[in-house]
């Protein structure tokens, strides 16, 4: 099993290395299409954005744009969707994005993907993968990204809830509408609890991962997954009184599996070959622990196809030739025997 996975990893790596430019464009196109599709499905307030051609066109533009432009397009699309509900809210959303940029993303630009990914992972039911991956890949500052991502998701959720209100009354462009949404978010204990759990799990996964013992990454992911499961099952039943505990359990388990797969594709180590080496130079004494990477050599399959030869006028039939030769030799032998007699 592990060797099959390693072969698959090598294969994907080879393909990725060879066609990286095209693979990246394809990944960006598919992600953009999925994001805009999910947005239209859950917040399809804007008739303009609900058009398939516009969605496809935007996805193509996002696929061929630099990474920073990709995230700006996603943010703009979400603002356009909110604009269809309320102008005031659209302005507020823009202000929120600006605050996030000026106060945080400016320092760590790459974290914008974590922030924007969390709302969509929530829609897919697997947001729990993010604190695990952040713990394995990033430094503890990614805690802030997790918190901001959850906040944005709950803003979308509040807008979704308030969209019904705006249909019935004419409060959509009033300050009151903004206050309803802020109160909704402020009073959401489940959101607060989710933020605390995500932050704690991301930190714990990171701390365990950097420890100096065998399989520290796997242990960190396993611990993180189990704690996520316990914490979210408890919070779903006691805080939210939700009946969707099965969804939470399935979501956490799938997230754990995804995190393990990502970790496996990132790095896989062979702890049976650990070497502890000590050496020194003029200034330091070094204690080095070297862990070899698990690897398999790519299968070198050489397929040799043998085609049946199509007889032509020049082709000899081997059987006929052999039989003919035998007959000739027999004639010669009988001829000589008769001559001898």
């Amino acid at each position, binding site marked *: 099993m592990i060797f099959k996975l390693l072969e698959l990893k090598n294969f994907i790596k080879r393909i990725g290395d060879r066609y990286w430019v095209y693979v990246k464009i394809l990944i960006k196109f598919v992600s953009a299409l999925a994001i805009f599709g999910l947005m239209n499905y859950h917040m399809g307030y804007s008739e303009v954005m609900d058009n398939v051609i516009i969605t496809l066109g935007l996805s193509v533009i996002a696929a061929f744009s630099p990474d920073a432009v990709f995230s700006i397009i996603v943010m703009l699309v979400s603002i356009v969707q909110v604009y269809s509900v309320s102008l005031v809210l659209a302005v507020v959303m823009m*202000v*929120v994005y600006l*605050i996030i940029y*000026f106060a945080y993303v400016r320092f760590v630009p790459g974290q914008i993907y974590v922030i924007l990914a969390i709302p969509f992972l929530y829609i897919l039911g697997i947001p729990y993968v993010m604190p695990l991956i952040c713990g394995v890949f990033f430094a503890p500052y990614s805690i802030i990204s997790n918190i901001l991502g959850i906040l944005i998701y709950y803003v979308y959720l509040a807008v979704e809830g308030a969209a019904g209100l705006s249909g019935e009354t004419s409060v959509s462009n009033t*300050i009151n509408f903004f206050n309803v949404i*802020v109160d909704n978010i402020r009073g959401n204990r489940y959101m607060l609890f989710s933020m605390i759990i995500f932050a704690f799990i991301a930190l714990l996964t990171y701390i365990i991962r950097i420890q100096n013992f065998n399989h520290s990454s796997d242990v960190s992911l396993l611990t993180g997954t189990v704690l996520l499961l316990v914490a979210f099952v408890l919070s779903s039943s006691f805080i939210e009184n939700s009946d969707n505990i099965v969804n939470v359990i399935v979501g956490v388990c799938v997230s754990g599996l995804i995190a393990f797969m990502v970790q496996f594709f990132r790095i896989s180590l062979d702890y049976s070959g650990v070497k502890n080496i000590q050496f020194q130079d003029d200034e330091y004494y070094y204690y080095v622990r070297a862990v070899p990477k698990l690897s398999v050599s790519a299968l070198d399959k050489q397929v040799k196809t043998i085609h049946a030869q199509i007889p032509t006028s020049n082709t000899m039939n081997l059987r006929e030739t052999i039989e003919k030769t035998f007959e000739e030799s027999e004639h010669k032998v009988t001829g000589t025997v008769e001559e001898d007699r």
Partner: protein
Amino acid sequence: MLSKKKIKIMFRMASYEQGVGKKDLNTVRFYKADYVRLNILKSVVCMTIAYALVLGLVIFYNIEYVIKNAVKLPYDSIGIKTLGIYIFLVVFYVFVSLFVYSSRYGHARKRVQRYFKYLKYLSKYYENDGEEYEEEERDDF
């Protein structure tokens, strides 16, 4: 004649120049102190904008109350609180920026030093009319 070593070095240099090298070369144009100070200043400006936007949102949320009690509001205490939080944030951002940009400058300088070593190698290579000379092994960028 093609030199494998030269091609390898030129490939590394080109990929560095087109990747992270662009930013690094821009960074090391400054002295460390200047670079860090400039970025601290930028961070404080950005933080000020963000803080103003947050204040705007808070006022917007309480706008009805503010309009109703515009005369009675304790502006002194509100001003002191706002300023206190702002000063705290400025200090916090100054320290974070100091740490982040000092470390970034350090990493960029190390990479640029390796890049210059490669440049030196190439220039000597051309001076010697394409004859390779022994150099100690270097790390990748």
